[in-house]
Structures are given as C-alpha cells and as structure tokens.
C-alpha cells in the first residue's frame, strides 16, 4: 500500500514540474464544451437537452488526451523497467499510476463540470447528479484507458490506435453517465444509472490494474 501511495506522490510531483501537460486536458475540456453552443445556437431548451451528452463526450476525450503519456515517459527513460523489477508488486505501482492519472486528468473535470454545466442552463440538482456521475465515471475512464495505454506502449501510431481500442470500451460509461443526468431531468430518477456506474467501477478496479500489468510486462519483453 505504501508503494501505491509512493507512486501517486511521485507522479503528482512530476506533474507539478510540468504543469502544461495537466492543464492541456483541462483547457481542452473547457474549450470543447464552450464550442458546442457556438456551433448549435443559443437556444436554452436545446442546449439543456444536449448538455449531459456534450459534457460527457468532452470529458471522455479529455481523459483520452492524457492517456498516451501515462506510461510512455517512464517507458522511454527506463523507470518503468525499474518498476517491473521493484520488490513491490508491479500491480500496486500500476494502480498508483492510474490513481495519479485520475487525480490529474479526471478530478479537475469533475470539479469543473458544474461550472460548465451552468453554460447549458442546468439547474442545481441536475448539476449535482452530473458531478456525481462524473465522479463515478472518470475513474472508470482512467482504469479502462490504462489497459489501452499499456497495450499500445511503444507501438507505431500508438495515439490513434489507443483511441480506436479504448473508445468502444468507453461506451457503457458514456451511456450511463449521460443517461443519469437525462433521467434526472426527465424526472425518472438517476439512482439506477448511478448504481450501474458504481458496479462497473467496482469491476474495473478489480480487473483493470491486473490487465494493465499483464500488458505492461508484455510491452517490456
């Protein structure tokens, strides 16, 4: 467990020295969501209807933006190799890296989403559901994305390939995440969607670090 926390601290420290990489994802999220009203038109009814979908798709693409770097830098300078040979289990270190990725690329989106939701005329309770759905959903995106990042490590055209591998797997998260807000607005209650998101998150927490570790070992061979 200490090794996990040490990895998180390490990655946060590294990100602190290179702020631009973290801020890119956040800026992307803010700009893309602000572009939609400009492209569609300022009708509040329409904007309100498409807001959950837009915010979710933007969040999905923003997390995707940071994924290629998740393991690449450590792979190039050889620290990943040292991690694989560390006396701590690689799975723990990988879990730490995924957690750090979420803290850097996922959590800022969760915190920003209510502010951006205001642009789309969502009311307070809908904003709350949106934030909650993103809070459950963005770690799921980081976990699934890590598998893709590990599989495409050091591979030609890795970035595009990563998107091709990971985006289809993101669909359930998108459906339930955006669906939660829509269901709430429609007065159906978001409980079902949110609990399904939580169930998928639990499944991913269990499987994804394991699959990522296996993929990393293959990439290091």
């Amino acid at each position, binding site marked *: 467990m200490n*090794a996990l926390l*040490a990895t998180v601290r390490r990655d946060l420290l*590294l990100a602190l020295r290179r702020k631009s990489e973290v801020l890119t994802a956040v800026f992307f999220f803010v700009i893309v969501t602000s572009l939609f009203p400009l492209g569609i038109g300022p009708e509040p009814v329409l904007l309100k209807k498409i807001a959950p979908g837009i915010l979710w798709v933007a969040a999905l693409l923003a997390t995707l933006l940071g994924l290629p770097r998740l393991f690449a830098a450590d792979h190039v*300078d050889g*620290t990943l190799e*040292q*991690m694989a*040979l560390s*006396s701590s289990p690689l799975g723990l270190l990988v879990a730490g890296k995924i957690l750090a990725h979420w803290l850097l690329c996922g959590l800022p989106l969760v915190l920003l989403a209510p502010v951006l939701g205001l642009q789309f005329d969502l009311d307070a309770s809908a904003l709350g559901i949106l934030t909650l759905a993103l809070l459950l959903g963005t770690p799921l995106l980081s976990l699934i994305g890590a598998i893709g990042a590990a599989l495409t490590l050091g591979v030609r055209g890795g970035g595009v390939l990563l998107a091709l591998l990971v985006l289809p797997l993101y669909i359930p998260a998108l459906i339930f995440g955006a669906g939660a807000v829509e269901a709430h607005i429609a007065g159906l209650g978001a409980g079902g969607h949110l609990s399904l998101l939580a169930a998928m998150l639990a499944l991913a927490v269990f499987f994804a670090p394991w699959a990522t570790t296996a993929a990393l070992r293959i990439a290091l061979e």
Partner: protein
Amino acid sequence: MLKVSGLACSRGERRLFADVGFSLAAGEWLHVQGENGAGKTSLMRLLVGLSPADAGDIRWRDEPTPSVEFRRDLIYLGHHAAVKEDLTPLENLRLAAALDGIALDERASLAALVRLGLRGREDLPVRVLSAGQKRRVLLARLLTRPAVLWVLDEAFNALDIAAVKLLGELIAEHLSAGGMAVLTSHQPLPVPGGKTLVL
C-alpha cells in the same frame, strides 16, 4: 546461490544463444563478453526476469525466478538512464527507494551522492547534468538499495576515468561483503578475479 542452466534465447527467427549455464556463489562475479549483437543485453534481461527465456532454468537460493525474494535481492541497471529529468538527484533516489518500499533517510542518500562525486548537485534538476553525471545518479542506487545480486549492463560506458575506478571499488567492496555481480562490458574491467562467459 545463483544457478543458471540451459538458457536459450532467440530474437524473432534468429537464435541468439543456446545452452548457456553458469553459477555464482557469494563473493563471485561474472564477466559476460561478446560482440555487438551477440545477446549480452538479452541475457541480462532474461536473467532479471524482464523477458521470458525460450528454454532453461534460473534459480536463486534454489528457488525458481522471478520470485519476490529474487526481486528484493536484485538490482539491475541497464542502458537506460532510469532517472527522472525533472527531479533532483536527491528526489530521484528517495522516490526510487519509496517505490521499492525502502525507508531511506536523508543522510544515507546524501552520503551516496557525495561518494559518487555529486556534491553540490543534489538540488539541481537532473536535466542540467551531463551524461556522465546522470549515470552517477543512477549508480548511487547501488549504495541506497541493499541488494545481493548486482546485474549491470554496460555500466562502465559514459564514465570518466575517475568514475570507472570508483565503480570498480564499489563492486569490489560489494563482493568482499558477500555480494555477487554480473557485468557486461567490451573492455577489461577494473575488478579482480571473476568468471568469464563468452557469448
């Protein structure tokens, strides 16, 4: 303690080596020699468990590797710098130890850096150091991580005369304390004794 037998490895369709075997006891070291492309680095990676062998058996304290115990006893330094450019040498040592689950105090890490001649560079980002100095930061891990088996791949490259001599001393100290080492190099090494394996 380290026993290797019948090791075989191929890259793609090309067979690099087959039936490689050796054993090391406390205080012994092995010099792996061979031309470029003979498979020295591949052998090192097989040995530490980064890549799987086509055939063969590697045993550490009579247990098959890679085991947790083996990883705890092992330190492997390869071609890569394996240091973070944005961090200082001190931070690099401390974080590497933390990932291994080793508590490293300030004094021990400073002592390692001073020993490797990095006095005055502890708080500079590694980015601004020269290639040889980066290499020294990596080598400082030999002092901060208590390992029995040192596997050093081309560790003497990019080092100046003083550093080569220093690394030779470090290895000799390690051996006389009952450690073991596997080294690859083209040139003769400044370490007395040792077995030789030619690929």
